[in-house]
């Protein structure tokens, strides 16, 4: 039986994988998997935090990966992340942009919400104006 078993998984937990913390005190943080403890936990690292253990239950792994050795030092990690521009790549991805949009919306003040409504109303008004003109022209024919 020479069947090639092709696994349907695209994202793998491996050293250097970028992950997003989805639960707990570090919620929303982007971390890099530095080493794997066991089936349920990994040592995660990021330039601005002390390396710590995080459970896979609390991590959502992303498409991005950084080429780092096991238990890379902070200096090596920061350098490799900057070289690959990983955090920016994530921010430019649709996932990253969605998170940015959600954050911007939640940080809106009442004045910002007023400005957004005013802009929406203005745009809708001008669209409707042109639409009604076209409708009248079509009805005349």
């Amino acid at each position, binding site marked *: 039986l020479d069947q090639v078993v092709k696994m349907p998984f695209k*994202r793998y937990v491996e050293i250097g994988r970028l992950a997003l913390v*989805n639960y707990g005190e570090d919620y929303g943080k982007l971390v890099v998997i530095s080493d794997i403890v*066991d089936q349920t936990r990994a040592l995660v690292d990021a330039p601005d935090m002390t390396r710590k253990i995080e459970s896979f239950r609390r991590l959502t792994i992303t498409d991005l990966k950084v080429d780092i050795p096991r238990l890379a030092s902070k200096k090596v990690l920061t350098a490799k992340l900057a070289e690959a521009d990983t955090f920016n790549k994530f921010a430019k991805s649709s996932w990253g942009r969605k998170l940015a949009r959600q954050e911007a919306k939640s940080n809106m003040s009442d004045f910002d919400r007023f400005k957004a409504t005013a802009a929406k109303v203005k745009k809708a008004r001008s669209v409707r104006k042109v639409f009604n003109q076209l409708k009248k022209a079509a009805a005349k024919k």
Partner: protein
Amino acid sequence: PRASFPANTKMVQGSFKWHQYQVVGRHLPTDKMPNPTVYRMKVWAEDRVKAESKFWYFLKKLRRVKKANGQILSVNEIFEKRPTTIKNFGVWVRYQSRTGYHNMYREYRDTTLNGAIDQLYHEMGSRHRCRFSCIQIIKTATVPASACKRANTLQFLDSKIRFPLAFKLIRPASRTLKTTFKANRPTTAMF
């Protein structure tokens, strides 16, 4: 007592139920024995008081001294030297089952020895219904990768380790956001 450590040490060391203490004690000096031998033990206990108690429990079995005629010279908590690297811990255990005493060698992967011992006590409780009072830790050691024996440890000693997470765990970002009813069924497929 913890003021001298840097701010994030406690978080890095982790929070454990059982702490490791170094207890040093000896027989009280008498006329016949003005300088008794000093003994040192490393014990796991929930706090210092229980550590002292554990010390006397073991020392009484090993030497002709008991709490009534002995004195504790010092109790110090032992912390992990490098809590940010993963180590393979081998633990030699003597435990009491329903039918007798047995020896065991168990391996755990963790960043701190306290974490490994935590795993040990929980695992002994679950697999062998063995509680804290029935377990004696004979010896612990950091085992190099070449000397590990257990299959569960060996499978992680791969420099190119790589595995997928087979299912997507759906849960709200905090317990306050939990709701009883959901509009849609969750999809746990990861592909």
